[in-house]
């Protein structure tokens, strides 16, 4: 759509890049796994992240065409491709979060814009503004219970669900892509606070950070 400006924010050459947690990991450390480690955290930085706005029907069609992956059918739904590399999460009745491997987002946006044509929609690149933290391990649920008021019991939070909610005194997007793994999509400016909170909450479970 020519009426919106698409802008590729990724540089061509070799340019030093810093994830939102680069400073935090340096300052607060990255504890190694111990015998008693019951929860492990890792950052998955530099993913391509696009906020998609528009009607579900046209977006679903365009996404199937471009990615071969449609919108989740329900509110709070999270779908992924087979490899688990591309995911679409329901955020609102007219908003979805699309996460793709870093570097794909500009091309995906371009192709989506083409496919959507004159429909009323919006696509915003938000990849520089948020990062993904993963939590794994038997104590992951306990760490979350110390952090979010949202009910993370498996009966209430099955695989394939995602919510935006309050995390300590910040907010996160909390998702459950698989039985053993939680994902937290964290805003860049709150990433350090979230990281320090998780290190503190996980301390009693010998939290380890994979870097």
């Amino acid at each position, binding site marked *: 759509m020519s009426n919106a400006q698409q802008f590729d924010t990724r540089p061509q050459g070799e340019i030093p890049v810093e994830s939102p947690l680069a400073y935090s990991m340096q300052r607060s450390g990255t504890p190694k796994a111990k015998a008693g480690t019951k929860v492990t955290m890792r950052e998955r930085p530099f993913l391509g992240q696009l906020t998609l706005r528009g009607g579900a029907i046209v977006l679903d069609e365009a996404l199937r065409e471009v990615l071969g992956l449609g919108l989740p059918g329900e*509110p709070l739904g999270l779908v992924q491709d087979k490899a688990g590399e591309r995911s679409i999460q329901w955020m609102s009745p007219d908003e979805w979060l699309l996460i793709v491997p870093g570097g794909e987002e500009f091309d995906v946006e371009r192709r989506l814009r083409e496919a959507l044509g004159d429909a009323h929609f919006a696509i915003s690149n938000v990849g520089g503004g948020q990062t993904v933290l993963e939590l794994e391990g038997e104590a992951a649920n306990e760490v979350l219970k110390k952090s979010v008021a949202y009910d993370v019991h498996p009966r209430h939070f099955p695989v394939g669900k995602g919510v935006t909610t*309050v995390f300590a005194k910040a907010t996160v997007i909390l998702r459950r892509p698989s039985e053993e793994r939680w994902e937290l999509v964290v805003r860049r400016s709150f990433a350090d606070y979230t990281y320090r909170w998780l290190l503190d909450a996980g301390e009693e479970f010998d939290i380890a950070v994979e870097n």
Partner: protein
Amino acid sequence: MFYILCPYCGEHREEEEFHPKGQAHIARPEDPENTSDDEWGDYLFFRDNPRGVHHELWVHAVGCRKFFNITRHTVTYEILEVYKMGEQPSITAENYAAHQAAASADNERNASQGKHQQGVRA
């Protein structure tokens, strides 16, 4: 701490995810330039403060970011219903008593309301 059903997310969420935005159904006058100062003043500043059924506008701020309406009892804090923008409430101050009677008939346990003295909050 309320537990609020978001009509868009389809499930209950903690109050901390929401912002209250005041009385619902305050329509902006269609033609502001031809609205009298008094009418404009009413629209801007005057709100109901009922003891009982009240319709309120809320937003699921940390969530789907959608605005919606809550019908809430200002004494019991019970949320009687939630409904989306553009919809009308089914429970109002006028029909509340009838609604309660119907609900009580369903549940006799709730029928034995004693005499309650109204007190002050400290």
